[in-house]
């Protein structure tokens, strides 16, 4: 990084409300930090309150080179109140295709309470798991035949979807 680059950085930084910037390459490390305390409008502060540490970490881990991906994930997370995650309470192998080759559920399916949605294989026993909620499957997060641990997210469910539909159906 030369002086020219540095200048443009500083200008860029000055125009935004980014406060700190660290750039490291081949052992060269450049760090910028703006003065503390700056007229940030109230509404921005409010927005900030919504970003939690856990989420930040996740975003950081993702490959930021794919910007659309980043935006979509961020969108999902900002919208997380809308969706419900079904997590595994058992350790084992996740199956969505039953032994008779039928697929139990797929993305886009509406599921109801008590519906068989997946199978966990543990200690050579297949255990069928039924849903405790109703809604639409937005995403299936684990592939058939993969191992899952306790607390691992399996399905992303939009619980409002079927409510509306059910409303119509009734």
């Amino acid at each position, binding site marked *: 990084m030369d002086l020219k680059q540095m200048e443009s950085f500083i200008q860029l930084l000055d125009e935004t409300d980014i406060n700190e910037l660290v750039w490291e390459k081949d052992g060269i490390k450049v760090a910028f930090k703006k003065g503390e305390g700056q007229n940030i409008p109230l509404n921005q502060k409010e927005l900030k309150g919504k970003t939690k540490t856990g989420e930040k970490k996740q975003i950081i881990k993702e490959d930021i080179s794919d910007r659309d991906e980043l935006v979509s994930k961020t969108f999902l997370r900002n919208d997380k109140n809308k969706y419900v995650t079904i997590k595994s309470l*058992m*350790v*084992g*192998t996740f199956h969505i295709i039953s032994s008779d080759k039928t697929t139990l559920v797929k993305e886009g399916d509406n599921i109801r309470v008590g519906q068989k949605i997946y199978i966990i294989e*543990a*200690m*050579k026993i297949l255990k069928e798991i039924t849903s405790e909620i109703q809604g639409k499957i937005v995403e299936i997060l684990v592939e058939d035949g993969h*191992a899952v*641990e*306790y*607390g*691992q997210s399996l399905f992303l469910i939009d619980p409002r979807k079927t409510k509306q539909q059910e409303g119509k159906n009734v």
Partner: protein
Amino acid sequence: MFKKILIANRGEIAVRIIRACKELGIKTVAVHSEADNDALHVRFSDESVCIGPGPSGKSYLNIPNIISAAEISGADAIHPGYGFLAENTYFAEVCESCGIKFIGPSKEAILNMGDKAQAKKIVRKGKIPVIPGSEGTISGIEEAKELASKIKYPVIIKASAGGGGKGMRVVQSESALGNAIMTAQSEAQAAFGNGEVYMEKYIEEPRHIEFQIMGDKTGEVVYLPERDCSVQRRHQKLIEESPSVAVNAKLRKKMGQAACRIAKLVKYVTVGTVEFLLDKKDNFYFVEMNTRIQVEHSVSELVTGIDLVKEQIRLAFGEKLNIKQDKIQSKGHAIECRINAEDPERDFVPSSGTITHLISPGGPGIRIDTHIYSGYQVPPFYDSMLAKLLVLNNNRQGAICRMQRALNEFVIEGIKTTIPFHQKVMDNAFFRKGEVYTNFIQRRIWPER
């Protein structure tokens, strides 16, 4: 050798087992609760599987999830550590039925030694003394008198349902026996809703002396020099050392051979510990056998140079003992202090929270086994041990000096620890003279409590 071992435990012992596996070139799988996501055993292992929420009943004791974790990770053995499932015969059985090697003795050995009455019966067969006393409860005064004169005064009357000193009476002579039994019975009735009592010979100021043994599948068993674990609080060991000032070479051999005999009686394979009470006249009595690796195994590792966890894994795999009894020698004196997250000033009440600052002792003759680090959050769900601080030196006096300087160096901020308690013990004149019996803490450190 095993290809991959799942460690069904947490804390320092999980880290300890991973260390042994790494040095043996065996892959490791850590299982952990949600409260232990950032734990060192998770960080140090090759793979990790979350098996449940914080409370151990739902995670570290969750047999289906642990077995399933072994299956999905392809582990060919499970090391149970100590506590949790380490002496659970059902777990050992499930492992066996799933084709996973349980790293410990056979389930029959665990069963035989786990039931105290059964264990004593076996041990008596081997002509090893157990504390004499009534077979079951006593009721009739005449029967009691007869037994007492047989096992000789002083005797102690204990509540069958009891604990914590309630319904307990020491009797010095026959004239006091009748009254003592009646008081004990009514105290026991009041405290536990069960008035049954039994009688044992009363051992005055005994020491807790235990022998580490190792056995292989050919039936060969060796013992390591004894550990003296007399510094206890409510039957919880706090300080262990090796060798014991109360055991000379002749007694060591006698007790060690007794320990080996017991192990042979149950065809013991892998590592285990035979615990004795030792009275002031060098009489010793079998108390129990621990069929697992113990917290204080590291004391014996320090004085002998033997890596007990590696040996345990090797022996469980079916290898033979690779050391002869006469090659096992003590290279000095080792002391271990258990550093617990407890407040010694407030009756050892557990302390949880975040460790804000940590400086570990170092330099010559120091060993630390711990799972904590600066920034570590001590979860409220598990036992309170934070670290084992061990020292080795040429003799007991030198080891105490070294422990004192190590305790002084040890900085753990953010939570209360038992470091001040250990400093008090190391300073205590009776401890320094080696006059330590199982009542040491209540008699010498906090007599008022």
